[in-house]
């Protein structure tokens, strides 16, 4: 019998929410299947491995708390990034903005001399401004001079990293750190409260959740949000409609940078209580948040879920390290695979592939 399978690839107008959800799920599943091969290589049954990861990250209150704790900075950075990505501003600089938020908060905590109750709010405001300023620089460069945003935001991460290094080796090195490169520990009033028995600094979590909702409303139900969406979806039409790219770009980066800065405050005031090496402040949260925002398809509300998902992956990494005794680098492989499958799955969203059997 002879037959012929025909592919037909057509552009899909706009994928529905359900399709997006389904395709993302399939992509993650596919990535997990491929990652399973690596578990096999190390002689661990993938199914058992995933079971352990799920149990270790969601199956008990302790693992769950860790998942949530890691989701907090991802949530804040991720929500901010969805707004920037909406306006087609490729902010790769959340990591640096987070660090600058941490720097600003440290400055307030150690040197402002503010009385106790005012200290934490001032740190959050300072951290927001620190991150926002770091985010506004590439924004201004882009709208005024047309400088490529991907590169400037990326490069500024490194400037921020070395700035932090310089601070902790130089002027802010704490006298009580015994020669080690840390700042002094913050006064008690600058410590964020945590949910009892966990390391979840809940004020930051609440802040993240509230901001996710606020941003959802901003994007979908306000004039500014409308402008952001138009610029993102159809820049030419935006120009036609007299929407100021200048104003919008600055606004989105003020938000995106500021939120990353808030994440930095959370890490520094909720976990470390001092300024320390950049790679210890943030375990690449700013970069992972790019995946988080991407997976959320730039929907601030969906970031709540995707940040939790990556919280699971990050604390699942602990399971890989601790319980399974596998090289922790497996996590990078994991993340890389998930990303590739996600971007690969984009094609399913943009195009409709139909099969038909011809005789």
């Amino acid at each position, binding site marked *: 019998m002879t037959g012929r399978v025909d592919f037909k690839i057509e552009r899909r107008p706009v994928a529905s929410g359900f399709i997006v959800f389904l395709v993302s799920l399939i992509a993650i599943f596919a990535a997990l299947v491929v990652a399973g091969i690596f578990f096999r290589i190390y002689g661990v049954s993938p199914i058992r491995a995933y079971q352990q990861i799920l149990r270790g990250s969601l199956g008990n*209150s302790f693992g*769950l708390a860790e998942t949530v704790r890691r989701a907090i900075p991802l949530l804040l950075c991720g929500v901010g990034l969805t707004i920037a990505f909406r306006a087609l501003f490729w902010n790769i600089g959340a990591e640096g903005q987070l660090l600058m938020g941490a720097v600003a908060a440290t400055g307030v905590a150690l040197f402002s001399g503010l009385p106790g109750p005012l200290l934490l709010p001032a740190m959050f405001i300072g951290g927001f401004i620190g991150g926002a300023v770091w985010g506004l620089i590439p924004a201004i460069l882009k709208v005024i001079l047309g400088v490529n945003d991907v590169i400037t935001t990326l490069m500024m991460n490194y400037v921020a990293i070395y700035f932090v290094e310089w601070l902790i*080796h130089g002027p802010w090195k704490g006298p009580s750190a015994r020669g080690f490169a840390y700042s002094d520990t913050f006064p008690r009033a600058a410590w964020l409260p945590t949910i009892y028995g966990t390391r979840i600094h809940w004020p930051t979590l609440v802040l993240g959740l509230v901001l996710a909702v606020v941003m959802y409303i901003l994007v979908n139900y306000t004039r500014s949000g409308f402008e952001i969406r138009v610029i993102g979806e159809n820049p030419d039409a935006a120009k036609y409609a007299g929407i100021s790219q200048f104003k919008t770009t600055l606004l989105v980066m003020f938000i995106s940078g500021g939120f990353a800065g808030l994440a930095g405050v959370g890490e520094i005031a909720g976990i*470390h209580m001092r300024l320390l*090496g950049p790679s210890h402040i943030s375990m690449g949260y700013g970069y992972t948040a790019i995946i988080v925002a991407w997976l959320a398809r730039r*929907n601030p509300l969906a970031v709540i879920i995707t940040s939790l998902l990556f919280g699971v992956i990050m604390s699942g990494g*602990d399971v890989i390290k*601790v319980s399974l005794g596998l090289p922790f680098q497996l996590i990078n492989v994991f993340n890389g695979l998930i990303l590739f499958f996600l971007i690969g799955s984009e094609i399913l969203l943009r195009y409709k592939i139909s099969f038909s059997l011809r005789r």
Partner: protein
Amino acid sequence: MFTQRSKVVLVTALAIAVIFSLTSVTMAKEYVPGTPLKAGFIYVGPIGDLGWSHAHDEARRICEDTFPWLETVYVESVAEGSEGLYIDKLIREEGCDVIFTTSFGFMDGTLISAQKYPDKIFAHCSGFKRNPNMMTYMADFYQIYYLNGLIAGALTKTNKTAYVGAFPIPELKRHMGAFTVGVREAKPKAEVHIRWIYEWFSPTAAKEAAEALIADGCDVFAFTEDSPTVVQVAAEKGFPSFGHYSPMYDFSPEHVVSGQIAHWEEIYLDFLAKVYAGAYTAHNLADVDYWWLLKEKAVEMGAKPGMLINPTYEDELKAIHINDPVLGMISVYDLVLKRLEQMADPSMVFDPFNGPIYDREGNLRVPEGLRMSVFELTTMDWAVDGIVGPWE
């Protein structure tokens, strides 16, 4: 769309709340001596770094092979500030009875956890804070650096020896100081030129720092960094060097004169055995500090285990004599053996930091007839006379 999404969010949030409230924390009891014991190790770097974390992990494996009643788990590449989380995990999920944390930066987190789990046993490496259930330990190299310094001083032709350092912290300043004391004993005019790379592990930085020291005219190399880079760079130019942490003889059999090798297992075996026997419990560790040196065999001098001094350099070192006030004319080779013997002696007849020792500003830091205390050693922040280079 909004309703669909918000439903998903709501369901997720509910699920989280339910799991939170349902699961209860299961806590194991205090360790009963003589029963199987589980120890957890927390490392700051990857075990593949061929340095600090690598050495601790080798020791962990030796322990596991030695004690049939011992089970171990480890976590590598733990960021400072995250140690608390892994301690929680090791205790609650893995059921560990003893936790070893192996970085200075884990100190505060380990103490907090020790207070949180008063029935568990903690051991923190290289710090100074203790608790009834938390001891401190360190296998320190300063005596070996002194011995390496003696050899370096004898071998230098340019009167400039080199030391590539990771971070300007007390530990390294102590080691540089001891190295310098040795160098100057062999050659009073010689200097120790130093460079910092501000990383524990950075082959490129270590390489360029070593090259910079070569350009400055240095011709013997010591270092503190977690890779064999400095040894390799020195060997390319034919300069002698001292391996650090792991045996580095294989990277340059002709030019690695000697070096420092850690035997963390000596501390781990001793401590674990005492826990197993019931001598150490979660209530009597407040004054336990393993500050172990040559005499405890926690550290070894050598190009590789068992090879104290590379035979290639033996004749040269036997031919160089110095005049010691006590021992008289003695070859450097014999002096090293003598000092080694003195320091390995339980009464520690000799210590590198015997006064008088001056800092490089000319102040007398250790008066004649005195020695530095362990506290002074662990907080040392001054530069021994003869050190040249940035100090912060």
